[in-house]
């Protein structure tokens, strides 16, 4: 029985597939911990049901923390879940060291009161990695590309015990590396055969995962099957070779080994089931429509799947083409399970996706705004129609969805980012645009803390208003108004505000303003270390090269000496003298 329940509260009109609902986890991860792990009480442990309202978001995290937010400021956000990427948090010594791992991942990350979803790759963006194989998936860790085998994945799930685990899937990634805007395929793109393989592989893995969840050791079964085949082959070989002695040895070995393996098997087959872990399956098929349909339909057949993930980050083409591919998947999925979408982050993309029946997203949009120094000022819903007038804006002019606090115009604006906003920075007018402008220009980290809090709050408000509009039956109408009013988000091109460029150049030049810039110090130290290393490497190489040539020269000289000696014996005495002198000069040269 899955701990996850999905309830649809309200289905939108025939105009769209939008729906409002809840995703709920039955227990806190600590109350149903499967293994005899050490339980440590913390103030945040709660046994109450954890709920996410849909359409809604998992909070995007980096290394298991929502960027810039400490546990207390995180709790001010209105999202019920967190998405953690295994490629961010898996340490170089894990999963080998999982025997020391004392508790669930949500406890490790102090997220017990939230629904924790774990996926292998970063959900916010596309990064190119080498193709996956039958045995492993490539992921990008801080130390470069790393391969995660299926076996390791199962270890990770058992050790981390997330509330929801994304299934191990062969997602094809062969887009151009540029993260924003330009989504071009490299070369002709994955061919039909490769896409088929990715769908098949992922389904096979999914079946194994679902079995593992029930406590069946699929790997042991696999090993056994493999061993059986090997044995048979070996037996045949031995028979063919008619090597009596070898066969005897083999057989005695078998006798000795057999009790051990039979001892192992029942133990392996009754592995602990993952009682508290739900499974979300990736729906694949790349850019090939019929494969998308097959993947969706086949995945939907698996009863044990609790939800679906459609990753649009890896899809090529224009926005419209990507939406079409996503729609193909969504249209062939059952409506009674939640659908999580990666890569649809801007408000208008979210609205379009919801209209196609998407339920869950992530908060990488507010994070990206924050990194740019931008603060959200968009809004969705009933006040949408009135505020342009109250704000004194001309209706024909598109209102901005954000303001950039790097802009000089905010330097003397002693007003909150957004009047009436309930976020930590704005509430009660505690922090102003001018202050955040000052913090950005002073290279102070509180800037991103305040901006992240604000942008997350506004994103949460946006979703809350969307849910309300689905309830009220005004979703489609308000969506149209939103796009009319705010237009579409300009494609991010990794832009950096001019003021930021100036600041960073100044910081680099001045090195230290207040003797208080650890980042610069670290960067400088790293650079120095890097150069030292390079220099060392260069010297070593030089030395090696020197030794090599010296050795070669010695060898040559010896050879020549030998030859000379030989010649000496042959040559008449008067010529010997000449030869010797010539030798000397060549050696010196």
């Amino acid at each position: 029985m899955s701990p996850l329940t999905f309830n649809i509260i309200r289905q939108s009109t025939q105009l769209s597939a939008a729906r409002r609902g809840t995703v709920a986890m039955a227990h806190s991860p600590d109350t149903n911990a499967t293994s005899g792990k050490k339980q440590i009480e913390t103030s945040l442990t709660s046994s109450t049901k954890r709920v996410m309202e849909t359409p809604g978001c998992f909070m995007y995290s980096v290394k298991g923390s929502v960027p810039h937010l400490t546990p207390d400021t995180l709790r001010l956000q209105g999202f019920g879940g967190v998405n953690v990427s295994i490629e961010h948090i898996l340490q170089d010594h894990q999963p080998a060291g999982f025997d020391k791992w004392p508790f669930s991942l949500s406890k490790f990350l102090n997220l017990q009161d939230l629904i924790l979803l774990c996926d292998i790759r970063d959900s916010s963006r596309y990064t190119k990695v080498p193709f996956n194989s039958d045995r492993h998936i490539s992921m990008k860790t801080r130390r470069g590309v790393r391969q995660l085998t299926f076996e390791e994945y199962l270890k990770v799930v058992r050790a981390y015990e997330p509330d929801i685990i994304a299934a191990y899937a062969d997602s094809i990634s062969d887009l151009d590396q540029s993260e924003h805007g330009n989504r071009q395929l490299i070369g002709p793109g994955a061919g039909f055969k490769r896409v088929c393989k990715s769908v098949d592989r992922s389904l096979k893995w999914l079946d194994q995962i679902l079995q593992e969840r029930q406590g069946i050791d699929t790997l042991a079964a696999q090993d056994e099957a493999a061993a059986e085949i090997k044995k048979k082959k070996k037996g045949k070989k031995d028979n063919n070779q008619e090597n009596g002695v070898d066969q005897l040895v083999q057989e005695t070995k078998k006798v000795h080994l057999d009790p051990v393996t039979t001892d192992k098997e029942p133990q392996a087959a009754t592995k602990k089931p993952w009682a508290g872990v739900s499974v979300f399956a990736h729906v694949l098929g790349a850019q090939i429509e019929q494969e998308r349909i097959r993947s969706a339909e086949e995945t939907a057949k698996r009863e044990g799947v609790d939800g679906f993930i459609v990753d649009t980050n890896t899809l090529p083409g224009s926005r419209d083409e990507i939406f079409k591919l996503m729609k193909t998947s969504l249209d062939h999925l059952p409506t009674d399970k939640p659908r999580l979408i990666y890569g649809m982050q801007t408000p208008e993309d979210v609205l379009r996706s919801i209209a196609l029946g998407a339920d869950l997203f992530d908060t990488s949009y507010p994070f990206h705004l924050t990194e740019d120094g931008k603060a959200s000022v968009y809004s969705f819903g009933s006040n949408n129609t009135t505020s342009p007038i109250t704000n004194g804006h001309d209706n024909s002019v598109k209102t901005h969805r954000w303001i950039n606090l790097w802009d000089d115009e905010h330097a003397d604006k002693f007003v909150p980012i957004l009047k009436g906003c309930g976020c930590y920075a704005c509430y009660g007018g505690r922090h102003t645009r001018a202050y955040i402008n000052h913090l950005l220009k002073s290279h102070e980290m509180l800037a991103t803390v305040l901006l992240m809090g604000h942008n997350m709050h506004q994103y949460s408000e946006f979703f809350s208003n969307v849910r309300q509009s689905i309830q009220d039956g005004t979703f489609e109408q308000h969506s149209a108004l939103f796009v009319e009013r705010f237009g579409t988000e300009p494609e991010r091109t990794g832009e950096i505000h001019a003021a930021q460029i100036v600041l960073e150049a100044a910081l680099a030049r001045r090195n230290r303003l207040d003797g208080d810039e650890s980042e610069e110090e670290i960067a400088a130290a790293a650079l120095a270390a890097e150069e030292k290393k390079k220099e060392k490497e260069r010297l070593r190489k030089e030395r090696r090269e020197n030794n090599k040539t010296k050795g070669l020269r010695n060898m040559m000289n010896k050879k020549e000496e030998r030859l000379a000696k030989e010649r000496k014996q042959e040559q008449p005495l008067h010529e010997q003298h000449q030869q010797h002198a010539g030798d000397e000069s060549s050696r010196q040269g």
Partner: protein
Amino acid sequence: MKSALTWNVIAKCSTTKARAAVLDLPHGSVNAPVFMPVGTQGTLKGITPEQIESLGCQIMLNNTYHLGLRPGQELLDACGGAHVFQGWNRNLLTDSGGFQMVSLLKLAEITEQGVQFESPHDGSLMLLTPEHSMSLQNSIGADIMMQLDDVVSSLTTGPRVKEAMWRSIRWLDRCIKAHKKPESQNLFAIIQGGLDPALRKQCIEEMVKRDTPGYAIGGLSGGEEKDKFWRVVTQCTDLMPREKPIYCMGVGYAEDLVVCVALGVDMFDCVFPTRTARFGNALTATGTLSLRQAKYKDDFRPIEEDCDCITCKSYTRAYLYTVVTKETVGCHLVSIHNTAYQLRLMRQIRESIIEDRFPPFIHKFFKDLFVEKSAYPEWAVNALQSVNVDLMKGDGPH
């Protein structure tokens, strides 16, 4: 001169010169001895004002030099001062701005008129005079402001030290004259005189005549020998009026705080706890943990078991190992812990003074931190001996 503070000593240590007091300032009461975290540019390194409040911080430092450059005097005047600007409703202390000019700018030149320096923005020559410093600090609106002093390195010897001392006195007079809000902002004088006891004595005599609301011991923590440092401190506290707060500038290592409190100092500030946090170093009663080290990757304990800060309540060393010096969150978390550690240390010192068990507290503090008596810093042992605490003798009375 006028004072906008009240200073009530509520307990005195019966062995050392330590005292516990309540300092009432325009933005609330401050329990002394107090450590003041340094929020250089109007913010304490990624920690929100609410978080700082919840750590029990009652007074924070801002640097005049930085705020004068950005946001600048005009904007500070426009919004009503630094408290409003940064959303901090408790007390603020600002330095004079002189120290940064000497320590950060190579091209600073000090004349009788003031400190001349090259603007880091456009390279033009600027002059910071006592009058300008007062004007800036009046705009900032700090509850305690510092006079502009002529800072020389504590390693300097010869006539320059004497010159700086006398000039600091002349500049104090100019500061007092230029100070526009003595009824709402307290001006502290800064005692100079290098490591020379005679100069220090003279300086104190002159400055006490000016009757400022409080006094600071300046010109230390510049790389001088610790054994000379504590002798200057103890001489100053002996000569300074006991009915006013005494502030030792730039002191912040845990053992320095404990020793200086015993020598009679009431107020401290240092960037150390937050700066070292950004390098992944966490302060604890048993020493510093460098959380970047691989030995913490499987350490599932909090930084300090009995710490009640949000970092220790939420995360293990193993988790912090993965984020320190890499994520801003890692920096915030260790900064919060280090500030909590520092403020808790001061609270513990204060409670022990009130309950008159400061000497045993000192014994325990040094034992926890250095373990072996042979590892105790000699200067600290000497300094404490001068106030009747013999670290080498037993564990102290309990």
